[in-house]
């Protein structure tokens, strides 16, 4: 089974990472020291162009979001899109004044940001958005949100390396803004789950902790990966190139393909069983038909061979008929 359902990088991390992880096996009896965490924070801060005091490290973005919801979501409206990949939204129901979902509707996926109301919100969104692959808020809209009310805004920039757009530079100016980044995508470390938050002052006050939350292996891999940013950039560039090629191939096969700035493509088939047919053919893609809109799937961009195999399999499927018989 070729798994194109989880938005992982199809490429292994930098070869330097594997070497360093191997060396750490001799130190597995040791906790990660706080000075080592400081070194990693410095490296993350340098990569993002912010002060290291604003960096909070966590074992994956979901963890950081969950903490933000627990500590900052109380008595606020926790707002996100539908669908969302934030599984921590389940937690929001226990602390939030209300959980509010904004339905994403094609083709424009426009969000009425101004219509969110005056009740204090904790607004959570990804940029670019999963599953649309599009950046659903612009700088002006975000600034209006931050200046217009008492909203806290947490932006997941897991796909930053693919889209090249960021709001990190706004964080020092806006205390109610925080941005998360990760090494799980373009850096190829999904198996170790290392993410961090660039926290505005309001987030920093509530979430800063002296606790060390990642393992020695994850620490060493993260530090080494950040020493080889060029490698991650090259992986991202290859994915972008493959994304465009895969998109053209899918369109040529009659699928509707939405423009994407991420490492996946949102597609719509004429019938709703594209994912099922692909599963039978040995490919796993994210089926959105039963949880969102009929006929929609999200396909993670694989490497050249995987994408070729997918296009080959698709061309022999019957999912492009109006109704199979």
């Amino acid at each position: 089974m070729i798994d194109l359902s989880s938005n992982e990088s199809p490429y292994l991390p930098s070869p330097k990472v594997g070497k360093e992880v191997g060396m750490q096996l001799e130190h597995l009896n040791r906790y990660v020291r706080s000075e080592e965490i400081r070194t990693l924070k410095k490296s993350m801060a340098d990569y993002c162009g912010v002060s290291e005091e604003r960096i909070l490290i966590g074992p994956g973005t979901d963890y950081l979001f969950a903490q933000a919801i627990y500590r900052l979501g109380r008595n606020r409206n926790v707002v996100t899109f539908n669908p969302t990949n934030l599984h921590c939204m389940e937690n929001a129901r226990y602390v939030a004044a209300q959980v509010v979902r904004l339905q994403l509707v094609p083709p424009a996926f426009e969000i009425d940001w101004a219509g969110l109301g005056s009740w204090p919100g904790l607004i959570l969104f990804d940029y670019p958005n999963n599953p649309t692959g599009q950046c659903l808020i612009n700088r002006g809209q975000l600034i209006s949100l931050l200046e217009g009310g008492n909203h806290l805004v947490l932006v997941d920039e897991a796909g930053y390396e693919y889209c090249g757009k960021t709001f990190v530079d706004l964080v020092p100016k806006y205390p109610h803004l925080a941005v998360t980044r990760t090494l799980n995508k373009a850096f190829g470390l999904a198996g170790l789950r290392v993410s961090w938050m660039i926290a505005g002052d309001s987030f920093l006050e509530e979430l800063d902790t002296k606790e060390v939350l990642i393992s020695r292996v994850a620490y060493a891999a993260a530090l080494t990966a950040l020493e080889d940013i060029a490698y991650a950039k090259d992986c991202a560039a290859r994915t972008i190139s493959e994304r465009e090629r895969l998109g053209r191939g899918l369109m040529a096969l009659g699928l509707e393909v939405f423009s994407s700035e991420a490492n996946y493509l949102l597609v719509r088939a004429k019938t709703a069983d594209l994912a099922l047919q692909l599963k039978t053919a040995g490919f796993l893609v994210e089926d959105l038909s039963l949880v969102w809109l009929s006929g929609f799937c999200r396909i993670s961009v694989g490497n050249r061979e995987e994408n070729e195999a997918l296009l080959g399999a698709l061309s022999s499927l019957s999912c492009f008929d109006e109704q199979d018989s």
Partner: protein
Amino acid sequence: MIKIGLVVNPFAGMGGSVGLKGTDGDLYSKAVALGSEPVAPGRIRKVLSLVTRKDLSFICAPGVMGEEYLKDFDFSYKVVGTIGDRTTSADTKRIVGEMVEEGIEILVFVGGDGTARDVLDVVGMNIPVIAIPSGVKMFSSVFTFSAHAAAEMINTFGSAFTEKEILDIDEEAFIENRLVAKLYGYVNVPDIQHLLQGTKAASDVRSVAKDKKREVAKYIVEDMDQDTVYILGPGTTLKAIADVLSLEKTLLGVDVVLHGKMVGKDINEADILDLIRRYKKLKIVVTPIGGNGFIFGRGSRQISSQVLGLVGKNNVIVVGTLDKVGPLTCLRVDTGDYEIDKAFGGKMDVVIGHHEKIIMEVKF
């Protein structure tokens, strides 16, 4: 072995290719005269070819209504009932009844909305169904979207089921020359949603639909005001509200709750207008129809445009579960009064859990 029923309406879908709106009654002869070929046999053969499960024992209808297709495959099966040369709706109902007596645990049927209504009349919500689309009229959300999806349901169904609607042409509206669908009832279908999600699903719809329905119901009940009259529209989510209150609700009717008690059952438009005159505070609670999103104008004609004009948008509570509302691009109203429809247009909240809502656009 699991006893699984199979009934096929062999003529369903024949009207479509020759421009007819179905094959009910005389339309079948017309379709044949116009040279239409049967569609259903191909559909069921395709589904059966994709079934890999080995623990099934079919109880099927005779000849073209079932046996003819099963005998081409390696399944064990038993035939029940008899049919004549020209199969009818009565055959479907009678034979499904016999299958129920045989102890089927689930029923697979092939047909359109008419066949679905026949099946509904016999099995209700007691026996789950897998509905394979073959008809011309396909308003019901009960139908699987393809042969592959139907086969996946057969291959994987277990103990988790979710309700889906049976709709058919609204005969009253049809006489007025309007082709609209009307809600006729609910059946249970296998809940395969969770089987299809990957590790990084772009949706956090995880809970079982039944539990979410109860959560919505409990929230609505907790929030109920003692002096307010609550008009509960049709549907299983509304029934869940009555269940929380330990009250008996008519599934397709409009019922009334006041002070936590049922004070009106299956009431009509005049009854609602009377309540509006008698009580200062009144709220209408409804759920959208799955698949098309209608909140008014399809499921409950009693909640008329006049009623809605008097009650107003602010006194309407829309409830649902995310697995039902998430697949909609919008909610819809079609009361027959443009001004009322327009007043209900724009954004509207749908309560989908405890302190949880989704904001939807209402189109008219």
